[in-house]
C-alpha cells in the first residue's frame, strides 16, 4: 500500500480507520500555533553596545534585511521586546544595566550573544570586561565573530527560530523555574517586588 505524505500509511488507515492517521488534521495543538507565531514575530530590544551593534544595524539595512523575518520592529521599550541581542563587549559598569534590561523584558524572552566579546570576553581579558555575558543572563544562541558579519547574525537568528519552533526553550524555562510569577531580589535590603500578573 502506498504511503500518503500528509496522512500516513494507507494500509494502516484502511485497517484502523481514523485511528491509523499519523496525526490529526482537523485539530492541532495550540502550542504549535504559538511557537509558529513566536518564531515569526521576534521583536529585538534596541540594545547596541559596541562594534557588533554597527553590524546589527547593517543587518537591518537594505542588503541583509532583517525585516524578512518580521524583526525590523526594534522595540525601544524592553517590555515589548522578545529577544535581546547583546551586541558587543559588556563592561563591569554595564553589567547591572544589562541585567536590569533583561529583567524588564517579559517572558518568553531569549538572548543572543553576538560576537566573541559578549560570548567570552574575546581578546579583552582584562579588568574591565565581563568574561562572557552568560555570567549575567542566560544565553540561547552564541554568534561567533569579531564582529560577526550580518550573515552570522542572521544564522543565529534562524537557529533561534528553530529552537523556538521545536519548543525546547519553553521546556527549559519551565524546568528551571523561569517564566511568570518570579520575584526579583533587591540589592541592599529593599523589599522584593512581586511581579503583578493581570491574567
Amino acid at each position, binding site marked *: 500500500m502506498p504511503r500518503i505524505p500528509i496522512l500516513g500509511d494507507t494500509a494502516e488507515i484502511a485497517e484502523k480507520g481514523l485511528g491509523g492517521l499519523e496525526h490529526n488534521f482537523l485539530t492541532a495543538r495550540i502550542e504549535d*500555533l*504559538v511557537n*509558529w*507565531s*513566536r518564531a*515569526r*514575530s521576534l521583536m529585538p530590544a*534596541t540594545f547596541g553596545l559596541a562594534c557588533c551593534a554597527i553590524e546589527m544595524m547593517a543587518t537591518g539595512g*537594505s542588503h541583509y*534585511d532583517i*525585516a*524578512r*523575518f*518580521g524583526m*525590523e*520592529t526594534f*522595540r*525601544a*521599550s524592553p*517590555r*515589548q521586546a*522578545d529577544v535581546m541581542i547583546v551586541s558587543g563587549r559588556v563592561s563591569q559598569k554595564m553589567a547591572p544595566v544589562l541585567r536590569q534590561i533583561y529583567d524588564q523584558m*517579559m*517572558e*518568553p524572552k531569549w538572548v543572543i550573544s553576538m560576537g566573541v566579546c559578549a560570548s567570552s570576553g574575546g581578546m579583552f581579558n582584562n579588568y574591565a570586561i565581563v568574561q562572557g555575558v552568560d555570567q549575567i543572563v542566560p544565553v540561547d544562541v552564541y554568534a561567533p565573530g569579531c564582529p560577526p558579519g550580518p550573515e552570522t547574525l542572521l544564522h543565529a537568528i534562524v537557529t533561534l527560530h528553530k529552537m523556538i519552533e521545536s519548543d525546547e526553550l519553553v521546556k527549559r524555562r519551565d524546568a528551571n523555574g523561569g*517564566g*511568570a510569577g518570579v520575584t526579583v531580589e533587591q540589592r541592599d535590603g529593599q523589599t522584593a*517586588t*512581586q*511581579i*503583578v*500578573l*493581570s*491574567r
Partner: protein
Amino acid sequence: MSIAMLSALSSPLAVDPLFVGGVGLEEVIIVIVKVLIAFVLLLVAVMLMIWFERKLHADMTNRMGPTIAGPFGLLQTLADGIKLFFKEDLIPKKGDRFVFQLAPYLTLIPAFLIFAVVPLGGDFDNNDGTISVFGNTTNFQLADPPIGVLFVLAMSSMAVYGIMLAGWSSGSKYPLFGSVRASAQMVSYEAALGLSLVAVLLKSGSLSTHDIVAGQADGWNWNLWITGFIPFIVFMIASTAELNRPPFDLVEAEQEIVGGFHTEYSSIRFALFFLGEFMNVVTMSAVMVTLFFGGPDGPIPFLASVGWLWGMFWFMLKVVGFCFVFVWFRATLPRLRYDQLMDLGWKLLIPLSLGWLIALAVLDVGRDNGWNTAVVGIGCFAGLMVMGALLTAAVSAGQRKRLAGEGFD
C-alpha cells in the same frame, strides 16, 4: 432585548430606510449582519494595513519586508498578534491599575465606532445610495445618525483620553512626557480638524455622513473641489497629527522618549495600542474619503451589473490611496519638534482654515443674494491677505520679544 424595545429606541434615529416600515426580525438580522461585516472588514483591513505599511516601507528602502510568515508575509500581523497575546503581561506597581487597564480600550473602541458611520458603498448616482437586501432597503453603512460628523469628532477626541491616561497611569517619566505631549498636540489639532470640517458642512448642509456623500454623487461635486482644496489639506495634516503618525509622532517618538505613552505596556495591551493606531489610520482614511472624495463615488458611473461591489471597490481604492500617503509620510519626513508642531497648528492651520471658512461663507451669501461673484471673490482674497499679514506681524513681534528675553507675563 425585544423587538418592540429596539423599535422604540431606534424610531427617533430612524433615518435609515430600513426602519421606515417598523422593525421585524429580518431587519434585526440585517443589522447584525451589517455589524459583523463592518467589524470583520475593519479588522482584516487593519491587518492588511500593517502588512501594507511594512511591505511598502521596505519597498521604499530597497528591502523586501516580511516574507516568512505566510505567503508574501501576509500573516505577519497575525503572528505578531498571537505572539503578543501569549506574552507575559505587566501592570506597573506604581501605576494606576484600573486606568492602566482601561486606556488601551479607550483608543481602540473609538476607532471602531467611527467606522460605523462611514458609508462603504451603494449607488449614489442613480438613487439615494441605498441597497436592497431580501426586499428591505437599507443604507450601506452601519449607522447613519443625523449627527454623524459630530460623532466622528467626538470619537476622535475620545482617543486622546486613551493615550493621555495610558501615559499618566504608567507611573514613569517617559510615558508621562508622551502623555503631556499627546494631550497638548491632539487638543490643538482637534481645533484645526473641526474648523476644516465646517467648510464641508457649509457646503453639504447636513451633519449626516450619508447626506454628505449623497451630495457629492457626481465626480465634479466632490467636496475636494467645492471647498477649494484648503480644507482638505488642513484636514489631512490635522488628522495626521491626530493619529500620531509621522511626522507628528512625537507622542511615541522612539528616539526621544523611548516608547512614549506605551513604554510600560506589553503583551495584549500593547497589541491593542498597536491595533488601535493602525485602525485609526484606516478609519481616518475612510472619513477623508467620505468627506472630501465622494465616498463610494467613482469616476466611472455606477455599473448595475456589478452591484454594490462597484461602489465599494472605489471606496476601498481611495482608502488604500490614503493609506499609501500615510506610509509615504513616514518613509520620508523627519519628525517635527514640539514647539514647531504647536506653531504649525496654532499659527498656520487654525487661522488658515478659519479664514478660508469665512471666505467660503461670504461667497455663499454673495451667491444667494446675487452679488457680483468677482467682486466678492477679490474682496475675500484681499481680506485673507490682510488677515495673514496681521497674523504674521503678530507672530514675528512675539518671536522678537521672546528672543530678546522679554516675557509675556
